[in-house]
């Protein structure tokens, strides 16, 4: 089984990332919270990762704050921009007056949001975050937050539209630099379809050492992040070549750390 840096990023409708890889936790990436991010480049809607907008989607990853919590208003991933409190293009934020201990899922309106406060004990170590959005019908969407494989919050939005598609997708933040997260990250997964609670649980348990091949057989075909990832400031590529992300702001050793879930 391929053991890589654990940050291959499957994109797109098929979001293929398996490729014989799977639960690779060889290394993680460290985002310094100042300027580190990985982005698609480009600024138009055609380059933005569209699954966050008007379709079923799933995002999942292992995270650990660099510090006691995430910095206020930082994002593990995003696609959009801040518009004077009237809109957020980002999908998921961590914030809270005591630090970024609250995971907040936004719609396109600032006040259309729902939250889950992550316990300090969970933030003290690696934890698995998953967010799903299901298009129930043309107007209603059901969003869920999972932490460590368990469903924590569910909310139905109306006319959910998360993305300001004028900017490109970023890992480790979104368009506004002050949103860049202070975190260690492993196995980010993005899929343009809905994962079930069982799937999410299996993802979490995979990180705890479950037999990857057994889990893979129960999953939709290959949505897992695998190895890949350069250790330079150049372009990183997932193993399938579906999507390149350009690393920005990293200094040697380019964010790669051995700390893993």
């Amino acid at each position, binding site marked *: 089984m391929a053991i890589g840096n654990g940050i291959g990023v499957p994109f797109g409708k098929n979001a293929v990332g398996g490729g014989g890889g799977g639960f690779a936790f060889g290394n993680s990436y460290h985002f*310094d*919270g*100042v*300027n580190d991010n990985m982005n698609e480049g480009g600024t138009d809607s055609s380059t933005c990762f569209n699954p966050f907008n008007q379709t079923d989607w799933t995002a999942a990853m292992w995270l650990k704050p*660099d*510090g006691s919590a995430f*910095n*206020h*208003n*930082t994002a593990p991933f995003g696609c959009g921009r*801040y518009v004077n409190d009237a809109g957020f293009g980002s999908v998921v934020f961590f914030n809270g007056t005591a630090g970024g201990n609250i995971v907040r899922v936004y719609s396109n309106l600032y006040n259309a949001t729902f939250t889950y406060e992550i316990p300090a004990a969970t933030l003290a170590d690696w934890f698995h975050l998953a967010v799903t959005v299901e298009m129930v019908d043309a107007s209603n969407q059901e969003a869920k937050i999972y932490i460590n494989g368990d469903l924590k919050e569910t909310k139905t939005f109306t006319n959910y539209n998360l993305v300001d598609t004028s900017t490109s997708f970023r890992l480790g933040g979104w*368009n*506004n*630099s*002050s949103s*860049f997260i*202070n975190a260690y990250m492993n196995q980010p997964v993005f899929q343009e379809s809905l994962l079930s609670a069982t799937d999410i649980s299996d993802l979490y348990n995979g990180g705890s050492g479950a037999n990857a091949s057994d889990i893979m057989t129960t999953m939709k075909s290959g949505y897992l992040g695998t190895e890949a990832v350069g250790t330079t400031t150049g372009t990183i590529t997932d193993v399938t070549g579906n999507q390149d992300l350009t690393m*920005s*702001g*990293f*200094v*040697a050793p380019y964010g790669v750390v051995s700390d893993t879930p």
Partner: protein
Amino acid sequence: MSFKSNEHSWAFILESEYKPNDITLSHYEVNVVVLSAEAVPYRNLEWTGSLLPELDTWDVFQSAKEAADFLESN
């Protein structure tokens, strides 16, 4: 404020005040434009190693948290 040498550092200056000819470009591993919380563009340098006096007019931090707070508060 005093700084230790050979540490990880971040420096900021308003992009409108950035003069590339006034700094030793090779000293800095990262030289990018970042946006503060108020979407103000800042020139941001990042490096590991000694501090140079050429950054007297910059806001320099040797803590990622303090550097992030600077962006959050501007």
